[in-house]
C-alpha cells in the first residue's frame, strides 16, 4: 500500500492498526463518514448514489480527489434499500421510492419485531446457534418491506442481493487500497439489544424493559454466537478483519447507566469478546450521550476497540475515562460542519488532536455522518487538520 502524504512514514492501514493498538502512530488518521454528502457534492441525486454503483464510485472519488485524500474509508452504501435494514432494523421511506429522489431516507417507529420473537430467538438458538443471524434478520426484513413477502420469499429476494453487495464491497475496498486508503470495517451489524429497541418501536420496547427485562437480555445474548459467526464469515468475504457495531439506543439518552450495564452491555461485550478472540477488531458507533456509561466500557478488551462518539458525549471526558483502553473517534459536530466557518472547524479539530489525540489512540472524524448539507470547505478543513496538526513528534 502506498503512503498517502509525503511526510507519512506509515501506510493508512498501519496507522489505523497503531491507533487501535493504542500506540502512537506517525500522525492522527482521518476517517470522514461520507455517504449522502457525496451525492450533494458530486451533483447526483441521493437515489442515484445508492442505486447505481458506478455513480457512487464517481461521487466518492470526487470527494477523495477534491477534498481529501483521507486515511480510512467508511462504507455505507447499500445497493438495495432492504439491505439498510441490517443496520437499522425498521421500516423506512426511501429516496426514489416513497420519497423524492433527493431526500434522505427516513425511518418509521413501527413494530417489525414482535414480543413473541424473544422466545422464538431462544428456540432458534437451540436448533442452529451459529446460524441465527441470517434467519433472524430476514424475518425482520420480510416484515419491514411489504413488497418482498415473508418466509422463503424473503430468502429468494435477499440472498442474491446480499451476494451482490458483498462483491461490490470487496471490489470497492480493493479500489480504495490501490489509492492508499484503508477501509474501516468489513461488516456493520446493529448490536442485538439495540436491534430490539429499533425493531419493537420505542414505546413497546420501553414496556419490554419494564415487564420482561430478563427476556430481552437473554434474547440478545442468545443471538451473540450467530452474530459472531456472521461477522467472521462476512469479513472473510469482504477482506477487512474489522466490524462496525451500531449501538443506536443504549446511550443515556435512552437508558439509565444501570439498565445499560445489566441489560444491554452483556450481549455487546459477549459479541466483542468473541470477535476479538478471532482477531476481528470492533468499532462501536455510539450515538447520543455516553458520559454515564463510559466506566462500563472499560470492561471491553483493551487495545482492540474503537469508540466513535457523535457529539453529545464529552469526548475529552471519554479520553480521560477510557483512553487508556479504547481508541476514540470523532466528533466534529454536524452543526459545525454545516454552519461554522473553516477557521472554526480548524480550531476545533486542532483542539481534538491536542486533547483526544494526546499519546495516540485517536481517529479524527465527524460526530456521525458528514451531513448532506455540510459546507465543502469545512469538510476539507477537517480532513486537512490531521496533516496540519496531527504529526507526532518523535
Amino acid at each position, binding site marked *: 500500500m502506498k503512503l498517502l502524504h509525503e511526510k507519512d512514514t506509515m501506510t493508512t492501514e498501519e496507522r489505523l492498526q497503531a491507533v487501535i493498538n493504542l500506540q502512537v502512530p506517525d500522525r492522527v488518521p482521518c476517517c470522514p463518514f461520507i455517504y449522502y454528502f457525496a451525492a450533494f457534492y458530486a451533483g447526483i441525486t441521493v437515489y442515484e448514489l445508492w442505486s447505481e454503483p458506478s455513480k457512487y464510485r464517481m461521487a466518492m472519488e470526487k470527494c477523495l480527489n477534491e477534498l481529501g485524500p483521507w486515511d480510512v474509508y467508511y462504507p455505507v452504501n447499500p445497493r438495495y434499500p432492504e439491505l439498510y435494514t441490517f443496520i437499522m432494523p425498521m421500516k423506512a421511506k426511501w429516496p426514489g421510492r416513497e420519497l423524492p429522489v433527493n431526500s434522505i431516507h*427516513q425511518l418509521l*417507529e413501527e413494530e417489525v419485531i414482535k414480543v413473541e420473537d424473544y422466545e422464538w430467538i431462544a428456540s432458534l438458538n437451540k436448533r442452529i446457534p451459529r446460524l441465527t443471524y441470517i434467519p433472524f434478520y430476514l424475518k425482520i426484513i420480510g416484515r419491514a418491506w411489504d413488497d418482498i413477502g415473508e418466509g422463503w420469499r424473503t430468502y429468494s429476494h435477499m440472498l442474491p442481493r446480499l451476494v451482490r453487495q458483498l462483491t461490490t464491497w470487496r471490489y470497492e475496498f480493493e479500489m480504495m487500497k490501490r489509492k492508499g486508503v484503508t477501509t474501516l470495517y468489513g461488516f456493520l451489524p446493529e448490536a442485538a439489544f439495540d436491534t430490539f429497541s429499533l425493531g419493537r418501536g*420505542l414505546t413497546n420496547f*420501553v414496556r419490554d424493559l*419494564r415487564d420482561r427485562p430478563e427476556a430481552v437480555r437473554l434474547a440478545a445474548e442468545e443471538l451473540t454466537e450467530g452474530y459472531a459467526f456472521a461477522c467472521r464469515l462476512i469479513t472473510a468475504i469482504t477482506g477487512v478483519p474489522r466490524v462496525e457495531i451500531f449501538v443506536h439506543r443504549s446511550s*443515556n439518552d*435512552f437508558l439509565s447507566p444501570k439498565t445499560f450495564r445489566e441489560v444491554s452491555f452483556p450481549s455487546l461485550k459477549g459479541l466483542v469478546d468473541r470477535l476479538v478472540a478471532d482477531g476481528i477488531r470492533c468499532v462501536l458507533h455510539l450515538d447520543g450521550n455516553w458520559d454515564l456509561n463510559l466506566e462500563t466500557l472499560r470492561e471491553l478488551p483493551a487495545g482492540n476497540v474503537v469508540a466513535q462518539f457523535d457529539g453529545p458525549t464529552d469526548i475529552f471526558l471519554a479520553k480521560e475515562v477510557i483512553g487508556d483502553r479504547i481508541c476514540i473517534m470523532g466528533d466534529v459536530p454536524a*452543526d459545525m460542519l454545516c*454552519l461554522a466557518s473553516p477557521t472554526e472547524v480548524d480550531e476545533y479539530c486542532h483542539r481534538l488532536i491536542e486533547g483526544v489525540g494526546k499519546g495516540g489512540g485517536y481517529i479524527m472524524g465527524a460526530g456521525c455522518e458528514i451531513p448532506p*448539507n455540510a459546507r465543502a470547505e469545512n469538510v476539507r478543513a477537517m480532513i486537512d487538520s490531521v496533516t496540519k496538526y496531527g504529526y507526532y513528534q518523535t
Partner: protein
Amino acid sequence: MPDNISSLIAEIEEEQTLEAVREALSRETDPLSLVAALRDGVAVVGERFESKEYFLPELIMAGEIFKEAINLIDPYLKGETSDSRGTVVVGTVQGDIHDIGKNLVVTMLRCNAFEVHDLGIDVAPEAFVEKVRETGARLVGMSGLLTLAFDAMKNTVEALEEAGLRDRTKIIIGGGPINETVLKYCRADAYGKDPTEAVRLANSYLG
C-alpha cells in the same frame, strides 16, 4: 386519594395508578382534581428526569399512564376542562419525518395543562402559520433530527415574520443536532435538549 394518585404515577406504577383512578371515579371524586393529581405526579417525573434519577423510559411510561388515565376520566368530565396554561403549536419541520422527540414533547406539554395542536411530521412553514393564525397560539415548537431541518426551521420563522405573527409568537426548537449555533441560524427564541426543558420554556413564555 388524589395525593395517592400523584405518588403512584410519580413512581411509574401503571396498574396501580389506573386502579386508583377507577376507584376514585366510582366514589364520585371530582374528575378535575384527579387530572390535577396526575399532573402533579408527572411534574415529579420531570424533576426526577432532570436530576437523572429517571431516564427516557420513565418519561415515556409516565406519558402512557397519563394518557390511559385521562381516557378513564374523560367520560366524567361532562365538557369541563381544567384551565389551560396556553396554546402551543408543535410539529416536525418540512422534509423530516422523525417524531419520537416531538411526540414526547406533545405528551409532556399536555400533561402540564397546555393545549397542544400537533401538526405531525414534514410540516410546511405555511401550515405552522395557518395553525398559529387559527388558534391564536403564542408558542410554536419545531422539531427536527436531520441537519436539513435547519433551513426548514429558518424558513418557518421567516414565514411567521412575513405573516406578521412573529412579534407575538415565541418559537422553540429541538432535536438531535439542535444547539445554540442552530438557534442563532434559525432566529428562533430558545432550544430545548429534552421534553422537560420544553415544558420549562413553555411555562416561562406562557405561564
